[in-house]
């Protein structure tokens, strides 16, 4: 069994040391309800991420009600699938992946999943880095401007920036969450930053 809840481990160690037959240990498993331990340990892992998951969901859906539905569905799916989660692996990346996949199969998400970055005309002209004097304006960019610019970015750029800058995920974690190679994470981040810079520059000029 992959999901080793605390009671299971206790039972395994306790009975194997005593050498009591397997049927006895399975008999006690019925009484020491595994579901109680799974539910308890899921709550301990998942609830501390609640606010951040909601924030991320809202950035994806850009709608409060949809964000709540998305988070609720994510938690339901994650709890159901918790037996398949391997303890000790990256829970955060696992649940963010569930949230993202749930979003992409939703009505709003399907619109974005049908748009590839290569088709985005703006992405063709994005510089890898920009060193024009105007970028100094970033120093004076207020939070609202940044939020607007972030919200207007293409979804793949928006989510990769949020995961890196706000969630402070490593490239490895983002690769697992987004199910893309690390090289793609790096190039997408670079383009996303360029796109955000340009968006902010345009807003500053307006």
């Amino acid at each position, binding site marked *: 069994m992959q999901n080793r809840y605390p009671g299971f481990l206790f039972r395994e160690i306790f009975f194997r040391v005593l050498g009591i037959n397997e049927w006895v240990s399975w008999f006690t498993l019925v009484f020491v309800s595994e579901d*109680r331990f799974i539910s308890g340990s899921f*709550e301990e892992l998942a609830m501390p991420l609640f606010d951040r998951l909601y924030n991320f969901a809202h*950035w994806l859906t850009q709608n*409060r009600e949809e964000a709540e539905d998305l988070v*609720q569905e994510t938690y339901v799916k994650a709890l159901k699938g918790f037996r398949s989660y391997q303890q000790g692996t990256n829970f955060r990346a696992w649940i963010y992946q569930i949230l993202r996949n749930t979003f992409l199969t939703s009505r709003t998400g399907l619109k974005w999943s049908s748009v590839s970055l290569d088709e985005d005309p703006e992405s063709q002209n994005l510089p890898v880095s920009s060193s024009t004097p105007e970028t100094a304006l970033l120093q004076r960019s207020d939070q609202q401007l940044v939020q607007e610019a972030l919200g207007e970015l293409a979804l793949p750029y928006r989510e990769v920036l949020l995961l890196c800058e706000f969630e402070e995920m490593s*490239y490895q974690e983002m690769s697992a969450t987004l199910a893309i190679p690390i090289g793609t994470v790096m190039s997408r981040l670079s383009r996303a930053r360029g796109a955000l810079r340009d968006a902010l520059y345009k807003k500053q000029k307006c």
Partner: protein
Amino acid sequence: MACESWKEKLDAYFDGELPATDVRALNEHLAQCASCSAEGLRRVQLKRAVQAAAHKFTPDAAFRARIQKQISSSPRRTVWLPNWFAAFACATAVLVIGFIFVKFQQSRTGGQQLFGELVDQHVATLASANPVDVISTDRHTVKPWFAGKIPFTFNIPELQGTPFALIGGKVSYLRQSSGAELIFRTGHHQISVFIFQEQKLGNVAVSQNAQSALSFQVETWQQNGLRFFEVSDAGPHDLLQLRDLLKAAN
């Protein structure tokens, strides 16, 4: 390395993903290159701006409570006993089983020790210049000799017409209780028969394994509150035959 190449590494540098050797090299370059330093500053500012701006949406308390409740009250497998009660019952059962197992092990070990002591006494008898305290082949002489010396009485069978002969007897001690040791002969073999009160020996598990583990044959049985032990290098058939004679007499 050209500045463009260094600038390509700036994202990974500020994301903390650059290998340590490259970090040292980039640090040295940034200390010397104003252009790359300025670019680095812009990237850090953008990073911090996004970090601050991204924290925009917070869930309301009612929604949080709803999710919390949903997780806490998720359906459980039905059990027909409360978990705490069942766990207590299982723990108690394990303790009881463990206690019985330990006691049984102690009893088995005690039985092996007892057989060992009896074998030692038999060997001492064989080696002694005075193996018995009462020398007589007559059972009517040997039996009365024990009167007053041990707290019980027993019968010695009639041995005429059997392959056995009585040599004599002496008082023996085991587990601080006194008993009788009778010495019989069959062919070239000597058989010691020890007789003790069962209750004085305590709870001792006697097993076939104990008998076969020793270099001597040991036969034991209980009769009328007495525990009989036969120890000899004679064959099992002889011991069983003498056992049957003693059982019939007692």
